[in-house]
């Protein structure tokens, strides 16, 4: 293994750590205080990017699922599963930090507004994906069923987005340091940077999770081989 590959497990976490520190610094010190909501709005910098990554992770699951059904390589299934698990973690972050932001600002823990509702539906689809995997015994069947679910779920997400937005209207959030509408331009750089922080976090978690999935398959193969040898 080249020195580059050997040092990756150390470099990546270091870069991630640096990015997280920079992101936190940006969220707390660089970004301006929101005019109406005050400092509690800073939750946004680690809430919204988590949401974006949760949807991206499921898109990865969808693509990997499709590739599995097409190429039949178990690696795609491992990637799909890993991405679903990591995505579920990010989705949970959104669903917990959202109410923690909503409560002091709008006086209510939960609102059935479009984006929160959609994230809840995504969370439920993620949970069903993980449950289906747990409730199938045969490895091949598990991979096939999850792949079908991954594709159906990924296709669904866009339609859920359209229908829930139609039903409720967009996030009524206007973030500003002074007057105006939309995301205040002073907040934009921190927000964009935090998206990259989450992207890096996703990459690092996948880098740990995918080999675990492959190792599980290797373990199963070894067990099979051992059982076959003993029978012979």
């Amino acid at each position, binding site marked *: 293994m080249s020195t580059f590959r050997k040092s990756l497990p150390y470099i990546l976490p270091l870069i991630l750590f640096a990015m997280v520190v920079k992101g*936190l610094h940006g969220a707390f010190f660089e970004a301006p205080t929101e005019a109406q909501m*005050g*400092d*509690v709005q*800073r*939750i946004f910098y*680690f*809430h919204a990017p*988590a949401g974006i990554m949760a949807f991206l992770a499921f898109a990865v699951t969808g693509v990997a699922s499709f590739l599995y059904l097409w190429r039949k390589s178990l690696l795609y299934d491992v990637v799909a599963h890993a991405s679903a698990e990591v995505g579920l*973690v990010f989705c*949970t*972050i959104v669903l*917990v*930090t959202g109410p*923690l*932001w909503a*409560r*002091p600002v709008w006086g209510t823990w939960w609102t059935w507004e479009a984006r929160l509702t959609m994230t809840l539906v995504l969370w439920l689809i993620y949970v069903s994906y993980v449950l289906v995997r747990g409730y199938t015994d045969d490895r091949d069947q598990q991979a096939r069923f999850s792949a079908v679910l991954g594709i159906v779920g990924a296709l669904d997400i866009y339609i859920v987005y359209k229908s829930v937005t139609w039903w409720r209207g967009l996030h009524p959030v206007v973030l500003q340091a002074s007057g105006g509408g939309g995301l205040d331009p002073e907040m934009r750089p921190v927000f964009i940077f935090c998206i990259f922080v989450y992207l890096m*976090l996703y990459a690092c*978690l996948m880098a*740990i*999770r995918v*080999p*675990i999935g492959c*190792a*599980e398959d*290797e*373990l199963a193969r*070894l*067990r099979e*081989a*051992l059982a076959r*040898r*003993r029978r*012979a």
Partner: protein
Amino acid sequence: MKDNFGYLFTAYTFIWVLLAVYLGILMGKQRSIRRRIDELSEKLENLPKN
């Protein structure tokens, strides 16, 4: 406005705790699977060749 720091603090703490717990679970799984793979590989080596 200032007294909302409780929510802010809880939100960020939750994120890090959740990620730490997840990471801990992953590392634990990694170790146990590695151990079992090593055990089984050894058993496979020690089986009489037929």
